[in-house]
Every structure is written in structure tokens, then in C-alpha cells.
């Protein structure tokens, strides 16, 4: 093993592969070793059955807000962190929005698809997404008919889902659209309307045949750009932005070597030295959902999931409502004047809820930070849990100054935690 395995490394793993972990888990992982931590992450796959079953009446309400709350409840439950992390990634990759789909059941079914197949064979996932009713509504599958093909889905599958810009032509888009003619939705189910399908010969990426939709997808998946496209996504999500071409090629090869299995590829990734390198840590700006979830789980805070989902929405990431076909822009776009204010206010309110008996957020910062004995110990405790890679520089000095202001332990916990959570460094994951 290359990089040193310690609490900071464990924190990095749980934040990237899941949504953070409380101090107790980090201490355990640091002691048990990387492989044990990975076994733990990959083994936890089942949610509370009652929470899962509880979606049935929620869907009957025909409203996306309680479904958003439900998904956030699954994330905050931290019972299947990798499953939810990967589902969130595919929700961004195969973006559909309830703003257009307008059907909470379809949106939920799509996330269930990501949850079920997200860690499996990417090729199976792509085929399933292509038949997913939410996706077909989102990209106008019903209007894709012989003689008048609607190119929306074909364009996105080439550009965003499977290949990426630069690897196809406009003709490929038109031909692929013909292959998907007749694919539609009826009463929330995928239907193939043969009468609307164009059975004629097509030429896609230089290959010829009377392709249907599935055959067209196979053509795309056989193209060398396809594994690179998927590898690029995985590297951006789990390692850092703008991976080099060499690194993408390397991991495209590993993906194919793993028979396109996302779980096995991720395991290799989380075992790699690159994943734990200094360049990978804190290398991207956390998205709102991961920010609020990581903070809640790390500190052991409790809050109504609906409110947490709403807070993420105010910061710019409303679950089931990405802004467009490309998903969320991410990166620097997560932070602007309005969203920073929302982040600052939410995290400050969370820290200030310590010791308060008010409804809503409940957090015991003393327990969360490992019960520092005196105000003077709080800065170190906050650094260890929230900013484990932070050196003794300006920010840590600021934390220490706040911790030595001579106020009570409870107030010190609030102030130091608020400062740590609202420091720009904390918003890097």
C-alpha cells in the first residue's frame, strides 16, 4: 500500500465513497486497516426495510417533495452509503428532472434503477436507462417515430451518456435516432411500438445494420471512447476534476478488465495509491447534497430529512430536479454569492443548534467531536474530525483563537464548529 493509512485517509475514503462517517467509525477504520474499511463500505447495501416500504404511500401523493425527503432519509441513514453515492452520481450523469417528467413515480423508479444497477455492469445500466420511462418522457421518446425521428435521446446518449463530444458526427445522431424510433411510454411503462419503428438499415459510428435501439447501444459501447467516457466520469466523481488522458486510458482499461463492472472498478480505485494521494484529497468543491449529508453524518446530527433536502435545494442541488440534460454543472459553479450564503447559514445554524432544545436540528457537538474535555481542546478535536488534512496554518490558528475566548465549553463547541464548517477548506471534499 502506498499512501499512509490513518484517520485522515479513512475520512477521505468515507467522504468520497459514501457521505462521511462519525468519529467512532473513523477511529475504527483507522485501526482496522484499509481493506477492512473497504469491506465495510462495500458490504453495507441494505436499508431499513420499513423505510424502503414507506415509499409506497409517499408515491401516492404525486408530489416530488416527499420523494426528495425520502431519498435524503436513505442517504442520512448511512446504511448503504456506496449505493446512494453511486445512485447520486448516475442521477447526475443520466440527468432527468421532475420539472419536465412531472411524475414522482417515474422519478422514483429511475433512482431505484440506479440503486439496483448502479454498481453493476455499466452496459446493462445504459440499456436499462434507455428503456427507463422517466428518461423516455424527459427526452421525448414518444415523439420519436419513423419518418420523423426525434433526436433528443440519441444525441444525449452519444454526447453525454456513452461517448462524449468529438467521437460522433451529426449523421451518427440522426441514424441512432432512427434506431430508437418506436421506443416510448404508456401508462408509466416502456413500450415498443413497432408501427413507429424504422426497420431500415442504419450506419452508426461506421457500422452498418438494421439496428434497433439495443443494437445501437451495443455499437456505442463497442467504441473505444465509451469505456474512456465512463472512466472519466468515475475519476471525476471519486478522484478529482480534469483527469489526464493517460489516467483515463488506464482506468478505461481497468473498467473493461473488470467486465464493465462498476463495483469491481471502484474497489480497485479505492485501493489505488492515486485515490489517497495529496492531489486527490480535497480536490473538488462538494456538491450541496454531499455537503449537507457529510456534515450531518460526521457530526451525528439529526434533522427532518425533508428540511435537509430543502437546504440542499437552496444551495443549488434539488434532488430529482437537475437543471438540464447535462445534470449539475458542479465544480466552481456550486459556489456563488447566493449559494455561499445558503451554505454559510445552514452550517452555522447546524453548529448553533448544539444544546438547543428547539424542534428541527439536534446535534451534540461534544459527542460528535469525541468529548473534548476543555474549551482549549475543541480546536484540535474539530480539526481532527472535520479538517483532518489541515496543517497548523492560519485557519487552525483561527480555530485555536476562538477556542481560547474564555466562554463555556458548549459555546466554544458552537463557535469553533461553525468556523470550521464555514471555512472554505471544509467545502472541498
Amino acid at each position, binding site marked *: 500500500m502506498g499512501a499512509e493509512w490513518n484517520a485522515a485517509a479513512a475520512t477521505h475514503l468515507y467522504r468520497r465513497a459514501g457521505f462521511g462517517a462519525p468519529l467512532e467509525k473513523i477511529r475504527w477504520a483507522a485501526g482496522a486497516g484499509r481493506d477492512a474499511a473497504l469491506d465495510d463500505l462495500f458490504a453495507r447495501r441494505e436499508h431499513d426495510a420499513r423505510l424502503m416500504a414507506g415509499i409506497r404511500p409517499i408515491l401516492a401523493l404525486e408530489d416530488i417533495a*416527499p420523494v426528495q425527503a425520502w431519498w435524503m432519509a436513505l442517504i442520512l441513514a448511512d446504511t448503504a452509503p456506496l449505493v446512494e453515492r453511486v445512485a447520486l452520481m448516475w442521477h447526475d450523469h443520466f440527468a432527468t428532472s421532475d420539472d419536465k417528467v412531472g411524475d414522482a413515480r417515474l422519478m422514483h423508479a429511475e433512482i431505484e434503477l440506479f440503486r439496483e444497477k448502479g454498481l453493476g455492469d455499466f452496459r446493462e445500466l445504459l440499456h436499462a436507462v434507455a428503456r427507463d420511462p422517466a428518461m423516455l418522457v424527459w427526452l421525448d421518446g414518444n415523439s420519436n417515430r419513423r419518418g420523423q425521428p426525434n433526436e433528443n435521446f440519441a444525441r444525449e446518449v452519444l454526447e453525454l451518456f456513452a461517448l462524449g463530444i468529438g467521437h460522433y458526427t451529426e449523421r451518427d445522431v440522426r441514424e441512432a435516432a432512427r434506431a430508437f424510433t418506436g421506443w416510448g411510454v404508456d401508462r408509466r411503462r416502456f413500450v415498443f411500438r413497432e408501427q413507429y419503428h424504422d426497420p431500415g438499415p442504419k450506419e452508426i459510428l461506421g457500422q452498418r445494420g438494421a439496428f434497433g435501439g439495443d443494437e445501437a447501444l451495443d455499437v456505442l459501447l463497442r467504441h473505444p471512447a465509451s469505456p474512456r467516457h465512463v472512466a472519466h466520469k468515475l475519476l471525476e466523481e471519486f478522484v478529482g476534476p480534469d483527469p489526464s488522458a493517460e489516467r483515463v486510458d488506464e482506468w478505461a482499461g481497468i473498467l473493461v478488465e473488470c467486465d464493465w463492472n462498476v463495483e469491481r472498478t471502484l474497489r480497485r480505485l479505492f485501493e489505488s495509491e492515486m485515490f489517497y494521494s495529496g492531489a486527490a484529497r480535497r480536490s473538488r468543491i462538494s456538491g450541496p447534497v454531499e455537503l449537507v449529508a457529510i456534515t450531518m453524518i460526521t457530526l451525528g446530527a439529526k434533522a427532518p430529512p425533508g428540511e435537509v433536502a430543502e437546504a440542499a435545494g437552496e444551495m443549488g442541488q434539488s434532488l430529482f430536479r437537475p437543471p438540464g440534460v447535462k445534470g449539475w454543472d458542479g465544480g466552481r459553479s456550486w459556489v456563488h454569492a447566493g449559494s455561499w450564503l445558503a451554505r454559510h447559514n445552514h452550517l452555522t445554524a447546524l453548529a448553533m443548534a448544539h444544546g438547543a432544545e428547539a424542534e428541527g436540528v439536534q446535534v451534540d457537538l461534544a459527542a460528535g467531536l469525541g468529548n473534548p474535555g476543555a474549551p482549549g481542546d475543541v480546536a484540535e478535536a474539530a480539526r481532527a474530525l472535520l479538517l483532518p488534512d489541515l496543517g497548523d496554518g492560519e485557519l487552525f490558528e483561527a480555530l485555536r483563537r476562538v477556542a481560547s475566548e474564555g466562554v463555556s465549553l458548549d459555546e466554544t463547541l458552537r463557535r469553533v464548529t461553525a468556523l470550521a464548517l464555514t471555512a472554505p477548506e471544509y467545502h472541498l471534499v
Partner: protein
Amino acid sequence: MNRILAGATCVVLPLAAWTALPRAQADVDSEPDLAALMPESTWIYAEGPGLAGLFAGGLDHPLVARLLGSELGELFLAQAETSPEDALERVEERLGRSPLKALEAMTARGIALGVGYKRGEPVYAIAARGGEPEEMSAVLRDALGWAAEQHGLERSQLIEPHGRIRGAGVWYLGDELTLALEGDLFLASNDEGRLRDMLDLGALEEAAGLASRPGFAEATRGVAGDELAWAWFDLAGLAQVAAEPVKNLRAATGNPGLQFLLGPVFCALGSGEAAYVELELDAERLALDVESFGVAAGVAQSVQLPLDARPPSLPSAKESDGARALVYRDLAGLFRQRTEMFPADVLPKFAEATSTLALFFGGADVTDGILPAISPWLGVIVRPVAFDEGATPDIPLPAAAIVARLEDAGRLGEQMFGAFHTLVGVINVEAAQNMQPQLIPKLELVQADQVLSAHYVEPAPGGGVDLRYNLVPAVALVDDAFVLATHRELAKELVGQLRRGEVEAPAGGGEHLSLEGAAAARVVRDNAEALAMNGVLNEGKTMEQASGEVRALASIADMVERLELFTQRPTAASLRVGLRVDFTERGE
């Protein structure tokens, strides 16, 4: 320290209220009523004459035993850190005597609470008449001695009076609480001046204090002395000195939405000069009456509910009925008198409503042509219905229907059917724009009567059934009785009942609502999962907590055989609201 002692005493005093015993055969004629001990500037006054019977039995009292033995009680006890028996035993060990007996001694002949205001802050006063003065003195000494020990003080620092006022021993427990004991009279207040006033009033021979206020005497003349508790509120006074809730209550008559939702009597209840509230409770029944006196002429006029109200008959009750109501909503009157009844800022909403309603009635002026022809008496019936196979919603709700009598029913009935058609069309346009299922109109005959309804297309098999499938809206007309129902099957049932003459006149002369506990419990249980998930997702409860609360809610409903709510207008200037809850028989 004093704050803590005051807190300890505050614990004892309310407990006293819970163990009051029946008035002893003492020379009660020579002592003033407890109300006579309260200053005239008391805005809220409450007595608990009937608490005796409830609490003399302690944990063995039938009602208490029943509550503790119910599923609700078991849930409560499961969450409590200690059992009631252990809690009482623990207090007895510390106090050196049975807390129930001690409280009995302090309040044997009554306990009252008065609330006044000084410079905007509430001033509380408690007056209690106990049994033997010597025993009361001993109880107080024990309680204060215990409190002293709890806070590391010498017993002597607290058990002896700190001073005397009019011969009464007085204890000052910080700035927060002053106690006085004179013979069998125990007084307490968070304001020393108020305590002095009470001792002064106690020395007077003629009726004085609050008891001498004419409004108080009039409002409380019905006190029989065997109520569990009763209370009097000076609404006009409270609106001057106290809080927003009272002001909001008095403003309810000027809110059209509340007028429509709650009706005229409820909205005007807070508008009187004073209100009297009476509570009776035993193991079989709860009765709560609220009467508002001195309702101003202008408000009384807007109440509309006729003094000699003669509500029309409704389709007869069926065993399956979940709820039935007869409400008075003079919509035509609300529109007609809108400028007198409501503030200017809400009047545009009437214009908006008139315009919207005109859309459904082919441009007709609803204020002149439609609403005056609809009887203000509206019957409401809630009854479960059987859904079509495969169309039972995942959140199943009982159906509800409104039955209204129409004047010129032939003409107006057609307009109502037309409005229904328009409504279905509007809903369908909206649904089409959002790719949602359409409502399919259907016309049926029940014997010779037409039932016009609309239903959603059958839900996709295996995909869950949305909340909207509770709605199979229907309208029907039987002679002059117009039926508007959320579900076709209920409309058809009511049409059959009306045509067969299966109708009954409701008892009483005012509005009336009855709710069956079993039906409410069924709705809660049918939707337990949805209610629990709401607690988890929106209130942050754990699944165990949320499920427990839903079970408790169902358990409360199980305990209720029937809940009845009624309104009356006894005189031109008084209004009354009554609540009756019959509990299910033990073991049901």
C-alpha cells in the same frame, strides 16, 4: 436558591388541584366563595370542584385506571422513566407522607386559579380551602422542609413563616412566589401585592372581588358545583391587556375563509364580552361547553344563524357512517353583507370568487342567481366506499358528500350539472397539459334519478394507485335535494336513500357534527404507514417513534365511541359550542 424553592412549591400547588376532595360539611355559608378572594381585575378564573371524585381515587379511579390500561397509556408508560406507583412512592419517601393525602388536606374544599395582568405581565393567584388547619400547617411545613433539604438549607430557614399579613403566616420564596396560610385558607401568588389584596378581600363579610362583578355572576350562574372544572374568561379585558391569540380570536368574524370553514358561531365565539367554559369528565363521557356572552349587536347580526333554527332532514345514518354533520353556511348572506362583515382588503377576493364561479355557471351572476337558491343548511356525510378492483388508492380515504336543498330545483339543478361538466373539463385540460390521467364522465340512472359522475382511467396494474383515485366525483338531484359527492358510490347510496324517503331530522336546533371513533381509527390504521413516514421525513422522528405515535393516535380514536360537536345561539347576544365525547365501553 429562591427560584428553585419557588419551583418546588409550584410543583406542589398544581398537584393539589389533582387531589381535591368533595366539599366537607363545614360551615360553608360563613366563608366567601373562592372567587370572592380574587381581585376584580382578574381576567381568567378557573375552579375545579369536581376534581375531587377524579383524584380521590388516585390511580385506582376508573378514568385514570382506564387511561393507564389503554394502549395509549401503555405506550406512555413504556416511554416513562418510572411507573406512576413508583413516582408516588418516591415522593412519599421524601415528603414523609402520602402526597395524595397531603394534597387532599390542602385542597379538600376547593381550589381556584385566577390570572390578572400587571404592566403587561401575567399575575397568577391560587386560592385553596383545605380540611383541618393543623394538618394543612403540617403539610406545608413538611413540603417546605423537604424543599429546604433538597437545596442544602436548614429546614428552619423555610418552615417558619417569614412574616405575617392580616394574621396569616406568609412565606417569601424569592421574587417569584409568595405563600400564605390562614386557618384553612391557603393562598399563593407570583405577586405579593395580589396576595395582600386576596387577604384583604378574605376579611370582608359581603361578597366582593371578582364574585361581585355583574358579568362574572351572570356568566357563572349555571355552575352546579359538580363539574370537573369550569373557567371564566373576560374576553374584552383580555383583548385589552393580553395576547395576540385573544385578538386573533375576536378578529375571526372578519375572515371569510374562517367563516366558510368553521361557520358563523365558531367565528363569533371570541367576540363576546366574556366566556364561560365547563368541563365534565368521567370514565364514560367527556362534556365541554363554551358559552360566549355579550356578543355585540353588529357581530351577532353577522352570525346569521337564526334563533329559531329548524334544520332540514338528511339521509338517515348508516352504521358505516364515519362522520355526519349539519352546518349552516349562508353563502348568499356572506356575499350580500360582505361590505359590513369583512375588512376592505378581503373584498377583492369576493369579486374574484364571483368571477370564477360565473365561469362554471355559464356566466350567471352567482350572488343573485345561484347562491340565494341554495339552502344555508348543508348536510355532510362521510362514509367508506368500496373501490373498484385494482383501483384502491395506496392512501385510501372515506368518501364525503354534501347534501343541500335547492329552491327552483329544476332550473338550478341543471345549472349545477352544467357546472360539474365544466369542472371536469377544466380538470382534464390541466391534466392533459401535465400528461396526467383524464376524468371520464359517466351518466347513470338510480331508479329514475340521474347521477352524473367522472372517474379516472384505470390505473396501470402493479404500479401503485395514486391519491387522486379517491376521487370519483359525482352530482345528483333528488327532488330538491342536491348531492355533491367525492365518490360515485356514495352519491348513488344517498340518492337511493333520499328517493326511498330514508331521511331523518337531526336532533337539536343548531349545527351538529358527529364523528365515530371506530371510523377515525380505521382511517388512521389504513394509513398508518403514510402517517409514520410523514413523521420520519418531515419531523425527523425515528421510525419507532413515528409508528408509536400513529398507534397512540389510533388508540385514542379507539377509546372514542362517538364525538359530537354542536353550536347554538341561545339568545341574540350569546353563542354556545358544545363537545360531547362518549368513550367506548371498557374492554371493547
